[in-house]
């Protein structure tokens, strides 16, 4: 093994602490080589090892009777019946998307798609949860707009060409994401239950096969980059971002699925973060075997690459698979048909070690299990969650509902996002029953009579004020969205975006959010089957709001969806769950507080889990009985904004009258959960179902042509032409982006 001078500086550059280095030396019984140091640094990075979060992630519920595969594989797997399963996961690509928005986001899509088809599942849906700095900020606005445009174009470029519909998600703006945008991508795939593939090596003597793109010098240390805060120098890390090739990924998808059909494939894993290193040692570790590879055989894009570079490269569109000995040719034949390179680069061994050779000489030799699973586990100190917002409300301006509603629907968070999602092909595969802009995306599974409903939700403002409460609200909202289209929530995946866990007040945010999420997921019986943690989302010491994003998946019988839009005038408008209650402290987290008062204070809305469940059960029954012409849950912006959203696409508005003594601004714009707006011709039947589930569904008004009119106890608070609200709603984002 080549001698290398391992200095404390070099160790620090690899983001390993002196203690971690000592652990490596003890584990190997000697000093590591330079290549081995690189291998350890990526595998033990926060991104790959979850060393700060693992202890707390254990608190999440992960099992249930539909769960075929929980966390620990490339994606979670859920049984949907009729012999089929779905595989899904969410992952972040925040750091690369800041440095190079287009390719960062594109390769984020590529990475999660590989995670799905590695399981043997064909990807059928992508959703993304995005956070950017404010587009209208006088200083950072220009850069934020450029990042938004790049990210959206990157997602579109990759998903459209690959041929997976991008069917929904969310996109919100906040100053705290100025130097640290969030790009979380969710993907879901389908396969036969007996054809699920796992990322496990097995069978001593079986060949290890490398497939796909050649290895270049791109993306070296991407995983470590994703495990550090941003500084002024970060922009120089642009070469760490990889370049995606969606066409090659499409070929890889088809070829891998076809190769799996030969049954000659024993195990398969994509080369994502930490590339060849991660795929070899994780597959070996899961299968409790060793893997030996010869780097000379690895297809390379450049000449003279060092073992260190080959092992750490994050070149995209590569897979590693283990085939049955003697059946290599069957596998090669498939890849040749798709014009892809497939090369035998090594063999499964019985000694439990990752052995890397170059020119026949051993350049690294590390026990797999310790490398993959023996990373340090930290119980980082956590105190009170960081919060600088006051609890007490500021003096509120006099309510001016008439002007507040158009201002809210024009705000970045609430305005129509069609500028963004029309750039995504959301229809390919002809299975999109409900696409972007719907309550939840709905994808029918053609092979079965079942459709899958998906919703991504997260609210950084809520979580900043109360990480625990905010995380619970995210679970509740996601489950409510899925329920509002008539589906039963069955499982979830999470992406935890936080700042620097070495700061006790940030660590406290993470711990509380995980605990809140765990409690709510247990309550709604939606186990978390996988996900991703993204820490160190800080730039120059400024952290983001704690932003846990949840993706909930629900199941329903395939049928035409009702949609959120009012369809005809003269229908009863009912508010399932009632008007809700609030106060000025709970009002400080709302969009009204953000846009109209321009402040953040207090607490997130109060959540009563039992009431939430009653409402969800009721709305599922109402929708599935065909009683609702439209159904839309109340969330950001409250009742008034929900009314505007119901009206905008069809030009059918409503006249409503609210029997309440609350201040008008609180009444119309509070974001209390557990409420769904329904339009119907059968108000008695709807009310009866609500009553049977232990909740209420008062009729608050009637749908009318072209207008929205809101009264409180007979007094008119505001009256708007739907067309003028729609113009503002539709055009706002594009005018912000320009």
């Amino acid at each position, binding site marked *: 093994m080549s001698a290398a001078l391992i200095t404390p500086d070099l160790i620090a550059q690899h983001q390993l602490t002196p203690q971690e280095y000592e652990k490596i030396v003890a584990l190997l019984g000697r000093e590591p080589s330079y290549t081995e140091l690189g291998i350890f640094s990526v595998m033990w990075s926060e991104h790959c090892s979850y060393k700060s979060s693992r202890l707390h992630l254990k608190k999440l519920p992960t099992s249930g009777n539909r769960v075929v595969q929980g966390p620990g594989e490339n994606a979670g797997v859920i049984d949907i019946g009729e012999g089929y399963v779905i595989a899904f996961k969410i992952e972040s690509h925040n750091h690369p998307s800041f440095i190079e928005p287009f390719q960062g986001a594109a390769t984020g899509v590529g990475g999660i798609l590989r995670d799905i088809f590695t399981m043997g599942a064909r990807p059928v849906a992508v959703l993304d949860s995005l956070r950017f700095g404010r587009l209208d900020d006088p200083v950072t606005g220009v850069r934020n707009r450029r990042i938004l445009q790049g990210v959206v*174009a990157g997602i*579109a470029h990759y998903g*459209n*060409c*690959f*041929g997976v519909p991008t069917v929904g998600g969310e996109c919100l703006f906040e100053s705290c994401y100025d130097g640290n945008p969030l790009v979380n991508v969710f993907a879901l795939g389908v396969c036969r239950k007996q054809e699920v593939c796992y990322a496990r090596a097995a069978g001593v003597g079986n060949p290890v096969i490398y497939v796909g793109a050649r290895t270049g010098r791109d993306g070296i240390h991407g995983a470590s980059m994703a495990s550090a805060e941003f500084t002024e120098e970060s922009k120089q890390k642009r070469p760490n971002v990889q370049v995606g*090739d*969606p*066409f*090659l990924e*499409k*070929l890889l998808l*088809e070829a891998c699925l076809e190769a799996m059909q030969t049954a000659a494939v024993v195990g398969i894993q994509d080369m994502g973060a930490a590339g060849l290193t991660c795929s070899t040692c994780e597959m070996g570790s899961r299968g409790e075997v060793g893997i030996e590879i010869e780097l000379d055989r690895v297809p390379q894009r450049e000449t003279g690459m060092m073992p260190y570079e080959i092992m750490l490269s994050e070149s995209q569109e590569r897979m590693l698979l283990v085939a049955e000995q003697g059946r290599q040719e069957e596998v090669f034949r498939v890849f040749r048909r*798709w*014009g892809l390179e497939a090369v035998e680069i090594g063999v499964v061994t019985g000694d439990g070690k990752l052995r890397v050779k170059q020119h026949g000489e051993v350049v690294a030799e590390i026990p797999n299990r310790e490398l993959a699973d023996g990373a340090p586990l930290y119980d980082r100190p956590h105190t009170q969650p960081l919060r600088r917002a006051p609890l007490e409300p500021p003096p509120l301006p006099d309510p001016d509902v008439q002007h507040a509603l158009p201002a809210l629907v024009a705000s970045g968070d609430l305005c129509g996002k*069609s500028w963004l*999602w*029309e*750039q*995504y*092909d*959301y*229809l*390919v*595969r*002809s299975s*999109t*029953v409900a696409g972007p802009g719907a309550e939840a995306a709905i994808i*029918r599974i*053609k092979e079965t009579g079942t459709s899958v409903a998906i919703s991504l939700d997260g609210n950084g403002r809520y979580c900043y004020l109360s990480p625990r409460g905010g995380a619970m609200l995210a679970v509740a909202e996601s489950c409510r969205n899925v329920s509002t289209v008539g589906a039963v929530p069955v499982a979830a995946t999470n992406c935890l975006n936080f700042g620097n866990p070495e700061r006790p007040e940030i660590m406290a945010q993470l711990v509380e959010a995980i605990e809140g999420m765990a409690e709510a997921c247990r309550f709604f019986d939606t186990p978390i089957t996988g996900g991703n943690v993204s820490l160190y989302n800080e730039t120059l010491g400024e952290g983001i709001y704690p932003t846990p994003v949840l993706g909930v998946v629900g199941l329903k019988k*395939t*049928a*035409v969806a009702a949609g959120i839009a009012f369809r005809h005038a003269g229908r009863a408008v009912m508010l399932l769950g009632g008007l809700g209650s609030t106060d000025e402290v709970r009002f400080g987290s709302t969009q009204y507080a953000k846009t109209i008062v321009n402040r953040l204070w207090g607490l997130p809305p109060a959540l009563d889990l039992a009431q939430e469940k009653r409402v969800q059960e009721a709305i599922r029954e109402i929708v599935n009985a065909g009683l609702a012409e439209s159904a839309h849950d109340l969330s950001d912006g409250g009742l008034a904004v929900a009314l505007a959203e119901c009206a905008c696409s069809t030009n059918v508005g409503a006249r409503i009258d609210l029997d309440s003594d609350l201040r008008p601004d609180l009444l119309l714009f509070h974001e209390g959960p557990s409420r769904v707006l329904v339009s119907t011709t059968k108000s008695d039947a709807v009310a009866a179902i609500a009553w049977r589930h232990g909740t209420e569904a008062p009729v608050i008004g009637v749908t009318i042509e072209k207008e929205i009119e809101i009264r409180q106890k007979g007094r008119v608070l505001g009256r708007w032409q739907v067309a003028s609200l729609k113009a503002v709603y539709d055009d706002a984002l594009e005018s912000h982006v320009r």
Partner: protein
Amino acid sequence: MTFGVIVFPGSNRDHDAAYAVEKILGQKVNLIWHDSASLGSVDAVILPGGFAYGDYLRCGAIAKFSPVMMAVRKFAAGGGLVLGICNGFQILVEAGLLPGALIRNRGLRFICRNVQLRPGTTNSPFTCAASKEKTYCVPIAHGEGCYFADQRTLDELEAEDRVTFRYVENPNGSLRDIAGILNRERNVMGMMPHPEDAAEPLMGSCDGLVVFQSMLTTAVRA
């Protein structure tokens, strides 16, 4: 009736087209791999949407050289029905089977949305079941769908009644709102919108079926 659906490595609406024809219209579908030199025994051919060979160069620029396109040319020359959808339209234009070009959308962005189409002619094997009095709701999903041709070609297309569909509201800058055209012999049609994605109530529209039904009617009559 047997439809052949060409599968390039980057086709991604091949399954959509096959599903619409097979599952919804109950016809037979043969998937034809891009390097096969023959189409086998088919009554019509569909070139589906997607990114044939990645389309990093120019949409359809490489596909026109693929072995299967020799067979498609021969099939078309013999009077066989050829339908190119989206990328398929781009390939037909590159291959010289249809006139003009498809360039970047006005606005330079990919657009996916439902659009309204009005049939330009019903005198064709692809639109004979349509009505000029009606508009048809069919989605588009493309970045390079702006139809472009010189004035003489455009005049000729109109004079010979070869415009099959026009956009009611032009989404991409296509000249004279053209969404679909025929060759002179009227047996080859290219269109940017996706009739295969508007083929059942679940998708929100069945208006796309009219294209396949027209082909079916034509084949039965023949």
